[in-house]
């Protein structure tokens, strides 16, 4: 419910109220009413277009209104395509032949034991144990086959496989647990196969319906409706599963938050350092110190997943440093914070400074504070920031950290795992850059840029950059993974990723350029040109541009067309093409159009000491 509240935070009040009421009451009538109100919204206020294909072994058509509303809440202009009942393979293999039908942005397979493996409900009528084991193995092969079929026909479309929940009804659960050919073990093996497929295949994900069902208990089921219409969900179950599905798909269109700004006193430890003294702070294995300890554990895990931690504390810095270094139970160390704002300024002001320092937008931030005053001040002065907790209770704060979807993602890249290190290096660089000659400093970084063709191994990272990059992004086009894959496959296009290494290590892919054929012959349009904010100020954008120009030149391109599309966040690059020397040819208030002709080979920045190509 809290998730949905922040998903639809920018919706008009009538829609917001109707949606929240419908979800709180789990009333399908109110869901339909809310859906009608949502459809009245201007398309531009409904969010990005998002085509979702659902294939199931049980009837999904009755769920359409509730699924539609849940996906619309992401927010998205969702187009829901529900395939024919229990015809997964047939549909996947035929879908590619449907002329004029664009591929979906996501394909979801929802299946369950009742149809996939009904024998396991009656094992002793079906040759237990060997007969069941053999049927299980056949099914594992079938699931692999579905993935293969999907990869043959629509590899670039993310495929979400549901895990198999415990059946709605079966007899003798005690016996079912006693043997490897029993129901629970067989379901475990099937679900393990699904997790394995997601682990081993790029673009295959899990929508964990089994985990969702365990959380719901039996309240999600309706045995009567299952018999009547092969639709197993109660009204409350329908609302819940639809929201769970929407949350599972959400990372495809909404990037996760990048930073968590957190208060110290009564949050990371119990008590107030300045009043209680560090020897009286509550932190450790005993209650209530163990709650604060667990909050610290959550934060450390977020840091390791690439979320920047920002410490916002009204305290004397020296006292805080002493407390961190002298309290043996502390899990977090001061070095775990990408920015530490320990002073007496207001927290909104400190957070804005931290955002600037880390080159992150305010809407990338989540804020936690036990003080009502601080949360309210943040809400009013930095409304873009998501406030995670609602009161001063540390247990509820911990719960909010467990339940939030703000940091949801479908995968963690190598770059994500190095991000904290990056933030630290960036701060060090900024200090150095202010002290020494910038050119000499950049050269001392021993940067090597590698231009890579965009393909399966780097597609996730490229899609992630397209979804998240705001500042150094000339057009801010949020192409889906599928769309990027399509661009990359077209031989006449130039679709490049730029990887950077420096003396601190491999910085990963930090730039993306996409140029596609224009109507005019031997002309390319630069559709996308972006550089990750963590690589700004190092001239890598010049290297990426040189790579685009040189690649276009090799293809015999005579003219490059480019544009700058202004957003609230990309002012930084408003003059980028002017600085590169492109000829401005028009545009209007928010769009500037440019041309480069002829397209001649271009040199790389001097401070990037080596450049190699993986691209042909």
């Amino acid at each position, binding site marked *: 419910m809290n998730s949905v509240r922040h998903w639809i935070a920018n919706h008009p009040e009538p829609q917001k109220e109707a949606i929240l009421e419908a979800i*709180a*009451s*789990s*009333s*399908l*009538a*109110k869901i*339909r*009413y809310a859906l*009608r109100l949502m459809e009245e919204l201007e398309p531009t206020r409904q969010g990005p277009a998002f085509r979702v294909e659902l294939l199931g072994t049980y009837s999904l*058509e*009755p769920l359409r*209104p509730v699924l539609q509303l849940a996906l619309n809440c992401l927010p998205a202009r969702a187009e829901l395509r529900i395939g024919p009942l229990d015809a997964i393979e047939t549909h996947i293999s035929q879908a590619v032949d449907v002329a004029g039908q664009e591929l979906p942005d996501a394909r979801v397979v929802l299946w369950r034991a009742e149809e996939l493996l009904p024998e396991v409900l009656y094992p002793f009528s079906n040759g237990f144990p060997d007969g069941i084991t053999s049927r299980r193995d056949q099914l594992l092969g079938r699931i692999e086959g579905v993935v293969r079929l999907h990869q043959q026909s629509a590899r670039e479309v993310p495929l979400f496989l549901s895990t198999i929940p415990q059946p709605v009804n079966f007899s003798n659960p005690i016996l079912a647990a006693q043997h490897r050919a029993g129901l629970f073990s067989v379901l475990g093996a099937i679900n393990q196969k699904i997790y394995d497929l997601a682990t081993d295949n790029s673009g295959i994900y899990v929508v964990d319906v089994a985990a969702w069902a365990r959380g719901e208990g039996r*309240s999600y089921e*309706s045995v*009567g*409706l299952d018999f*009547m*219409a092969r*639709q197993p*969900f*109660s*009204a*409350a179950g*329908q*609302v819940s599963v639809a929201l769970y599905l929407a949350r599972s798909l959400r990372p495809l269109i909404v990037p996760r938050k990048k930073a968590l700004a957190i208060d110290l006193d009564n949050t990371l430890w119990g008590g107030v350092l300045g009043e209680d003294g560090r020897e009286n702070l509550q932190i450790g294995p005993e209650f209530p110190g163990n709650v604060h300890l667990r909050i610290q554990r959550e934060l450390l895990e977020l840091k390791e997943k690439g979320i920047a931690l920002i410490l916002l504390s009204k305290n004397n810095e020296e006292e805080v440093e002493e407390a961190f270094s002298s309290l043996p139970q502390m899990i977090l160390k001061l070095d775990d914070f990408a920015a530490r704002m320990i002073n007496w300024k207001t927290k909104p002001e400190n957070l804005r400074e931290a955002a600037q320092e880390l080159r992150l937008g305010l809407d990338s931030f989540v804020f936690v504070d036990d003080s009502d005053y601080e949360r309210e001040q943040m809400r009013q002065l930095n409304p873009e920031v998501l406030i995670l907790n609602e009161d001063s209770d540390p247990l509820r704060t911990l719960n909010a950290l467990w339940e939030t979807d703000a940091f949801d993602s479908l995968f963690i890249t190598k770059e994500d795992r190095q991000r904290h290190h990056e933030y630290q290096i960036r701060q060090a660089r900024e200090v150095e850059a202010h002290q020494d000659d910038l050119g000499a400093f950049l050269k001392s970084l021993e940067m090597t840029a590698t231009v890579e063709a965009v393909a399966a191994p780097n597609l996730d990272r490229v899609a992630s950059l397209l979804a998240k990059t705001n500042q150094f992004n000339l057009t801010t086009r949020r192409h889906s993974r599928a769309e990027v894959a399509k661009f990359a496959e077209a031989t006449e296009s130039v679709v490049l990723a730029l990887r950077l290494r420096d003396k601190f290590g491999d910085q990963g892919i930090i730039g993306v350029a996409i140029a596609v054929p224009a109507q005019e012959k031997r002309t390319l349009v630069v559709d996308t040109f972006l550089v990750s904010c963590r690589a700004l100020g190092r001239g890598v954008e010049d290297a990426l541009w040189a790579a685009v120009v040189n690649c276009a030149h090799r293809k015999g391109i005579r003219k490059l067309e480019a544009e700058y599309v202004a957003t609230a966040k990309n002012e930084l690059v408003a003059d980028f093409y002017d600085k590169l020397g492109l000829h401005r040819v028009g545009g209007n208030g928010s769009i500037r159009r440019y041309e480069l002709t002829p397209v001649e080979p271009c040199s790389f920045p001097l401070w990037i000491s080596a450049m190699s190509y993986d691209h042909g």
Partner: protein
Amino acid sequence: MDNNDALLRLLRDFFNLPPDIRPEEITQKKVGAWDSLAMVQLIADLQGTFLVDFDLDEIGALRCYEEIRGTLVKKGISLTKTPVSNAQP
């Protein structure tokens, strides 16, 4: 029309019916959107909203406002009260 009639409100929202529709006009035959798919959803919603379970023979006799009302009343549901929420506590 009785504005306190929870069933009437549910059916109006569910089928997008005009606010002044009379209960006797709400029948499966007269309401175009009341097809078999909607029937499944309507049963789920009635069960969730009024916290009842319908017997198999009752499901076959939920073809209009009056029949649904009669079935709910037989189960001890008062329709002039605000419906009970489906939501989990």
